[in-house]
């Protein structure tokens, strides 16, 4: 799909200079390292500082470790009782606010996602410790709900006062006979949500993955990692996989259940959607169980087709490859019809995407498919590999903020390690163009001269909008209404505002229509009142 790029982009250097002009000197020097110009497709990405501390006072888009752990990764699982150990706020704010859908319609299915559980710590608990209250809360939860698992999420004060949630979890596991486990995801750890993803990955891996060997039957069994079923994305992906005859063992963690996590090691391939939030689980499952992983992307119709073909290629099965082609052939006409309809109205318009650790990259696909250009983009909480590709992994220095996040030492499981592909298989697949553990990053996909900014803040967002005057701005809820006030349509790419799904083929159609609606909206054209457009004075004769 070609994009019209005749109109030259603004000079990235000039924009950068404008953005940095107002900073105190030291802060400006640090921000400068987090802004680079994309060299153009296929060229080696320049180094960009990321996963670095947020500058205090900038009005950041970022959230905290607890949000990454409880909110993002564990939030979408419906049948675990997630207890927030802390004052009431953290549990309250992460209660149903992320639009993770779940299908709990089966008879007897458990669904705790509509509930908020908290120990609601009071000053006494801060002074004398909260472990007793936490134990009592777990007992009360078990008595009321008889869940199959309870998890505990630590908030800031818990770490400071030294409550040992893990020993509480062990003790309560013994007492209740169910799996109780904790996440030390205090908000101050790390520099963003990213640390929370890592902690969540570790906890899932240590406490659930691999404890139930009875997975589903199926010839082609995969896990979908880093897909959170915002607005029903996972349902669309599930529909496509089923149509292709691919068995989804577990999704991490959209529309997921505890039992599916527990049996996820029975899959034969891990497909990674959001590289940032879940690559740790993929890596660890490869080492422990011998399950290879590859990067997929179901955002964008072409990307969806490519991802399905990639899965088929992995299984080296002619029948599967044929079915995948049939599914793509059956799905594409309706996608292409809407593309053709929408493209004339969207072509040449410009977008900015500042969100997530993958979404700012993935959604560029959808914009390209209707002829729109991405003039600037960046992640909120990504690392260098998400920008520059995994090739830079060995050169990433581990700083103090990352060092305090546990790195699990993983070894092959003596009973369950079973390499799905031999070294010869892998070589053969590689020779045929299949790449394992492959994430090329966002920058190599971007137009030459497009600006890449890590950890964008309110000041910079305002300047970017003023300078580029894009047709649409994509970020999160905190940025939404500021964009509207500036007369600019805004699409949330964390929770999608109200729409979705945007994944897969049906999702692509939804997204094209949504962007068409936004960039061609009548509302923003009505900003000047008639009298402001012709402000000349009118007078009356005195005898009127």
């Amino acid at each position, binding site marked *: 799909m070609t994009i019209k790029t005749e109109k030259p982009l603004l000079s990235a250097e000039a924009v950068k200079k404008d953005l940095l002009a107002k*900073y105190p000197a030291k802060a400006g020097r640090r921000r400068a390292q987090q802004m680079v110009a994309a060299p153009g497709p296929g060229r080696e990405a320049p180094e960009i500082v990321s996963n670095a501390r947020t500058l205090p006072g900038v*009005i950041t888009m970022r959230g*905290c470790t607890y949000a990454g752990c409880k909110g993002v990764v564990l939030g979408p699982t419906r049948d675990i009782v997630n207890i927030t150990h802390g004052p009431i706020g953290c549990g309250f704010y992460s209660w149903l606010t992320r639009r993770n859908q779940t299908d709990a319609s089966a008879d007897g299915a458990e669904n*705790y996602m509509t509930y908020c559980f908290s120990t609601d710590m009071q000053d006494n*608990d801060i002074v004398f410790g909260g472990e007793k209250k936490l134990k009592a809360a777990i007992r009360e939860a078990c008595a009321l709900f008889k869940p199959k698992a309870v998890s505990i999420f630590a908030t800031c004060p818990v770490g400071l006062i030294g409550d040992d949630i893990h020993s509480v979890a062990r003790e309560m596991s013994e007492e209740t006979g169910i799996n109780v486990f904790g996440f030390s995801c205090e*908000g*101050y750890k790390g520099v963003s949500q990213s640390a929370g993803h890592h902690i969540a990955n570790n906890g899932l891996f240590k406490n659930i993955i691999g404890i139930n060997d009875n997975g589903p039957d199926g010839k082609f069994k995969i896990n979908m990692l880093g897909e959170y079923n915002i607005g029903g994305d996972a349902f669309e992906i599930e529909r496509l996989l089923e149509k292709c005859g691919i068995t989804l063992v577990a999704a991490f963690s959209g529309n997921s259940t505890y039992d599916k996590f527990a049996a996820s090691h029975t899959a034969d391939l891990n497909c990674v959607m959001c590289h940032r939030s879940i690559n740790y689980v993929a890596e660890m499952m490869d080492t422990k169980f011998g399950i290879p992983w590859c990067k997929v992307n179901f955002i964008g119709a072409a990307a969806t087709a490519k991802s399905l073909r990639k899965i088929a290629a992995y299984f080296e099965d002619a029948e599967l490859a044929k079915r995948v082609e049939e599914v793509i052939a059956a799905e594409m006409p309706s996608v292409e019809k809407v593309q053709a309809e929408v493209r004339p109205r969207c072509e040449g318009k410009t977008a900015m995407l500042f969100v997530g650790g993958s979404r700012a990259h993935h959604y560029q696909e959808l914009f390209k498919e209707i002829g729109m250009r991405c003039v600037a983009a960046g992640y909120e909480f990504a690392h260098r590999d998400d920008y520059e590709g995994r090739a830079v992994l060995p050169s990433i220095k581990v700083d103090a903020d990352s060092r305090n996040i546990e790195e699990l030492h993983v070894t092959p499981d003596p009973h369950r390690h079973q390499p799905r592909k031999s070294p010869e298989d892998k070589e053969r697949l590689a020779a045929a163009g299949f790449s394992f553990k492959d994430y090329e990053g966002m920058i190599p996909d971007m137009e030459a001269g497009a600006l890449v900014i890590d950890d964008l803040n309110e000041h910079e967002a305002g300047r970017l909008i003023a300078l580029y005057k894009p047709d649409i701005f994509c970020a999160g809820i905190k940025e939404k209404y500021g964009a509207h006030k500036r007369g600019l349509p805004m699409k949330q790419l964390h929770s999608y505002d109200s729409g979705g799904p945007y994944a897969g083929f049906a999702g692509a159609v939804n997204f094209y229509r949504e962007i068409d609606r936004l960039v061609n909206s009548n509302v923003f054209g009505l900003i000047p009142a008639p009298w402001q457009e012709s402000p000349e004075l009118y007078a009356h004769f005195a005898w009127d």
Partner: protein
Amino acid sequence: MLLRHTPKEITGREALVINPAKTCQPIGAMVAALGIEGCLPHSHGSQGCCAYHRSTLSRHYKEPVMAATSSFTEGASVFGGQANLLAAIQTIFALYNPEVIAVHTTCLSETIGDDVPQIAEKARQEGKVPPGKHVINASTPSYVGSHVTGFSNMCLGIVKNLAVKTGKRNGKINIIPGFTEPSDMEEIKRICAMMKVPVILFPDTSGVLNGPLTGKYLMFPKAGTPVEELKATGDSRATLALGEWASADAAKYLDSAFKVPPVILDLPIGLSATDRFVDALRKAAGVTVPASVEFERGQLLDVMADMHPYLYGKKVAIAGDPDQVTALAEFFLVLGMLPVHIVTGTPGKRFEERIHKMTGTMGRPVNVKCPGDMFLLHQWIKNEPVDLLVGNTYLKYIARDEDIPLVRHGFPILDRIGHSYFPTVGYKGGLRLIEKILTALMDRQDRDSTETGFELVM
């Protein structure tokens, strides 16, 4: 069923809160700070607090909500957040240049014991605060009270940090409107203008959190209570604190520090509470109530008389903040409705007492819990169903499961608009509340009535 695990049988809980009817202090402090002209709220803690508060407030108001954070990392949590706050103050003035930075604490900075006034003083000494600009603060530990307490503490912080006494009375009445909507604050100012009473209303989020779309974004719109007015609160004739939980502390401080007499009132929701507000305002300012105000009162009373048959005897469950819930319960009682289940998450000994006293004439027992949660409320409803639910958006899960109409009121409302623009305080606000309640009840009657009993005229 969305809340399929909630059992009818009620068992005591000591430790586990389920589906809270409150949130934490800092968000209330942020709202109060947004009601100061030219103010940027600042959250001294880890950045997640600020992100969560801004997200929730953006969803509630559908407006940009700006606030900065000290972005604590593990190092700051161990060694203290002074360096972070100093850097933040410098960066905020360089990038955003507000008139005021209003710093509130979090459970993190409170637990480690950061001394914010001392850090602010250090910032001033180091020249990080430009001349004429202000850094004010409030202590808002999340493990005490609720968002209402946080709002109250920031109101207190405002007067503690800014109010002065020049010795020359300014003839104005201070009004603290409580944790209410920008529309409510606007309405209170309108009533005061009708009564020709000069007031200093603070905080005032009208025009800040319900601003216009002009194509130009102003981080600090020409709205909110100006700093000069806040300074002048020490010279006022009296302070009317609307809502004991959210507003009394600041009023009491103005009394003890500057001898500005306080009048602590309920939120003026419903006829009787609005009457008390108007009467108190009249007495404090020494004015007579104009016919225009009496006209609006008469309109409300007229509708109350006309629509009484549709309201009388209807059972209501209410969840919300104590100032709102108390006033609503009183209004419902006057309308002949039966507020049978009442919870608030905000702790406070007087709440249950007040509700029991108020509902004593109802001739039947009332379930009231403070602090209580929505899980308990739901269990009460399963044991004794109601005709109407009144409270925030989270009640929609109970409403759907139990098939009960819901009127949204309070904080947060994440799924409907209107609260920012149409008040529920004052006589006009009373009219709107009745309209909303009647619409909910009558839509239900239309849906549920038999074909034979279906009514054209209601």
